[in-house]
């Protein structure tokens, strides 16, 4: 290392590049982006199972009419926790884990820009979720106001209220630090020659996502802080008697909340934009347009928030504005869908597991997008709002969008991480079971919603019985299929056929220039231009 005489006195280990401390302390103290990426991914997977178990309880209670085994208040707690833990515990850390692993490798950087802070942003999370999940067990019961935390209901919560709120503060701090790290890494640590418009799309989408995170997580922190003071210190932010307005919370929350849903999809867009070209053996169609579309989606995400609030009694002009601005998002998203389709066109397509997930994403996310567009039509939303139609919409974009993209990413890069191929056959089983039962689980929820079933209810009128049973059966099967996932990964970590460096025939990008498994430290020497040329998707005019 540079200036090693001085550094060595402060930090003995510096000279030894591949030395890593052993045992638990390695993982607790690590500043290596790959270790931290692994930690994030393990954490995300764990939280996926925790939140998925809540979902299983929800589906079991809804299996047939009548209260089966959950008190309604407890049911609401499970719904709330399912939403919060999936979003903040499973999807977001999953994407951050992928960013940690891949961004330095993809831009030719030796590590993340701020390694110690990187460790900090991870290790806050287990504590935050201890606080959140622990809040279920305190006097007064857990948070039961939905993940959207609308007052005045949410401030009727008992002792769990400050626990949940502080845990959200902690998650926010973690996300902000993670996002700062990602932006700085991308802006400051790229290898020479890696100009912005040569970056892989995963990097681009994460750059924009990180910006969204820094812009909106503090707003959420502010909103929940106001909940806290309304409850404990007698402020009147959301209390009409004192001149406040419960709806004001919704504005602030959704100013965060809508960009948040794109935070959960943009990195997924990036992943799909990596996988589809690889397995079509063809560069991404319309690279520049993809970048601009991502940026437009991010921009629009700041001016559409009140489409979650069409029924709160907004003035007509705002309803019109938010309806129209929301509809606009279909244009850049459409550009993305069309570009992916055009990438497939005249390709040479093979159907390995990552590609299967990406293709399922393409179809099912679009369906979720279509129902989103229907929701955007304000008068029609009067009928859809707070029904299972909305639940169906957001699971199509979140599960078959965000979650499927994470699955695809893991199956795409796993050989690079472990140096082994995984069990292709099992992986295909995992995919097909998931894809089929996902639809059995969530497609009927469109019918339920249209037929008039409200969301967030533990029991329902008998005309909803049949589809709920179908949905629950699909849910159990989908949930059980997920057990394959950790098993396949475990097998792959343990051993298996050696992976080549390029792994996939059509793979392009710097990460594939590295050996498999990727060594503990990579790109200590920045990669040379020559390597880059068949690396990132290079646009002609920028080549």
């Amino acid at each position, binding site marked *: *290392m*540079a*200036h090693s005489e*001085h*550094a060595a*006195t*402060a*930090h003995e*280990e510096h000279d030894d590049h591949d030395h890593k401390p052993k045992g638990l*302390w390695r993982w*607790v*103290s690590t*500043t*290596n982006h790959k270790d931290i990426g692994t930690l994030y991914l393990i954490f995300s997977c764990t939280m996926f199972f925790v939140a998925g178990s809540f979902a299983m309880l929800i589906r079991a209670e809804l299996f047939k009419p009548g209260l089966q085994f959950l008190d309604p208040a407890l049911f609401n707690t499970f719904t709330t926790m399912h939403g919060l833990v999936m979003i903040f515990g499973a999807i977001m850390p999953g994407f951050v884990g992928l960013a940690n692993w891949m961004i330095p490798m993809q831009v030719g950087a*030796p590590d993340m820009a*701020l390694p110690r*802070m990187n*460790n*900090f942003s991870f*290790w806050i999370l287990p*504590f935050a979720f201890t*606080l959140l999940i622990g809040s279920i067990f305190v006097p007064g019961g857990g948070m039961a106001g939905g993940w959207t935390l609308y007052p005045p209901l949410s401030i009727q919560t008992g*002792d769990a209220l400050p*626990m949940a709120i*502080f*845990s959200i503060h*902690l998650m926010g701090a973690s996300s*902000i630090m993670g996002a*700062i*790290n990602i932006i*700085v890494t991308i802006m*400051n*640590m*790229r290898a*020479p020659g890696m100009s912005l418009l040569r970056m892989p799309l995963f990097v681009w989408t994460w750059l924009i996502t990180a910006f969204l995170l*820094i*812009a*909106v997580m503090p*707003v959420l*922190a502010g909103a929940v*802080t*106001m909940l*806290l*003071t309304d409850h*404990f210190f007698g402020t*009147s*932010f959301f*209390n*009409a*008697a*004192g*001149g*406040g*307005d419960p709806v004001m919370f919704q*504005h*602030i929350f959704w100013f965060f909340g809508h960009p948040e849903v794109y935070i959960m999809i943009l990195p997924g867009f990036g992943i799909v934009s990596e996988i589809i070209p690889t397995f079509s053996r063809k560069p991404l169609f319309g690279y520049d347009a993809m970048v601009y579309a991502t940026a437009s989606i991010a921009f629009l995400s700041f001016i559409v928030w009140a489409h979650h609030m069409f029924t709160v009694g907004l003035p*007509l002009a705002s309803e019109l504005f938010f309806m129209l601005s929301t509809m606009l998002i279909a244009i850049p998203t459409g550009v993305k869908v069309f570009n992916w389709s055009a990438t497939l066109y005249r390709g040479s397509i093979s159907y390995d597991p990552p590609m299967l997930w990406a293709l399922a994403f393409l179809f099912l996310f679009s369906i979720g997008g279509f129902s989103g567009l229907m929701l955007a039509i304000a008068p029609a939303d009067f009928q859809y709002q707070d029904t299972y139609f909305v639940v169906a919409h957001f699971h199509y974009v979140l599960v078959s969008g965000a979650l499927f993209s994470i699955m695809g990413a893991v199956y795409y890069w796993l050989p690079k991480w472990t140096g082994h191929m995984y069990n292709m056959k099992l992986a295909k089983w995992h995919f097909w079971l998931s894809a089929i039962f996902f639809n059995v689980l969530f497609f009927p929820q469109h019918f339920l919603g249209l037929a008039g079933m409200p969301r967030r209810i533990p029991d329902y009128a008998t005309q909803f019985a049949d589809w709920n049973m179908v949905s629950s059966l699909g849910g159990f099967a989908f949930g059980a299929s997920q057990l394959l996932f950790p098993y396949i990964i475990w097998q792959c970590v343990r051993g298996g056929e050696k992976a080549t460096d390029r792994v996939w025939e059509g793979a392009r990008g710097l990460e594939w220039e590295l050996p498999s498994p990727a060594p503990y430290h990579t790109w*200590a*020497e*920045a990669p040379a231009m020559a390597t880059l040329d068949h690396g990132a998707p290079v646009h002609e005019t920028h080549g």
Partner: protein
Amino acid sequence: MATHTDSDKYYLPHGSPWPIVGSVALFSTMLGAVAYLNDWLGGWIFLPGALLLIGMFFGWFSTVIDENQHGVYNREVDRSFRMGMMWFIFSEVMFFAAFFGALFYARRLAVPWLGGEGVKVVNRLFLWPQFSPGWPSNGPEHLGPRAGGSFEVMPAFGIPALNTIILLTSGVTVTIAHHALRTGRRGVLKLFLAFTFLLGFTFVSLQVHEYGEAYRELGLRLSTGIYGSTFFMLTGFHGLHVTIGAIMLVIIWLRTLRGHFTPTHHFAFEAVSWYWHFVDVVWLGLFVFVYWL
């Protein structure tokens, strides 16, 4: 763009205890706060957590300062720090934006609507016939500590105006200090840095004095309806930031006394001064929208 040459590599620390210490500290601080708010055990867990947090910052920053003094940070590392600080300040801006948003929403929409203005005329007809909207307001039920709910507002051109002058001056003094640092006039640097944090602490103590007056004499508290809520949350979080900024100023002042920082290499100094300017700008917003208009 980063260039990596053999003589000039990006410094990567290998392993650090501080983040986990920080996480534990944050957790126990929050648990302490929860216990305090919920009347569980008294807030005693709060203290060890907070002490640990301070210890963490001390340890973490000492390590960084130490490494820096040993010259292991090249220009790219320095740039990473700078970018990191700027984005951190941006996140702080957005935090304040949430509260400013609440203030504007309450003033421009919520309170008029409660009074039946615009499309919400039925609110006056069927809910709050007695309420006449306006600002400042503590709502149709006149919430607040006094019996009738009356309260007075802090006049802008008293202490707040004085505080504005103080903060603006401190912005100038920190810039003078920065200039002195860059031109190597260490005496001026130390002096003006000291001025800066003294002004900062003066600001905070005036603010504390003002709060005391508001609580005791003006009937203006956190519970004084939406006016009290927005007033204290905005000025309170700002005051907290001034306090933190002033402490950071003290720390870099102590470091200048120890001979740290060179005319070309002084990231920490700049970070603190950016932060200070940020706090300054937020105050201008507060002065205009909370006190004055």
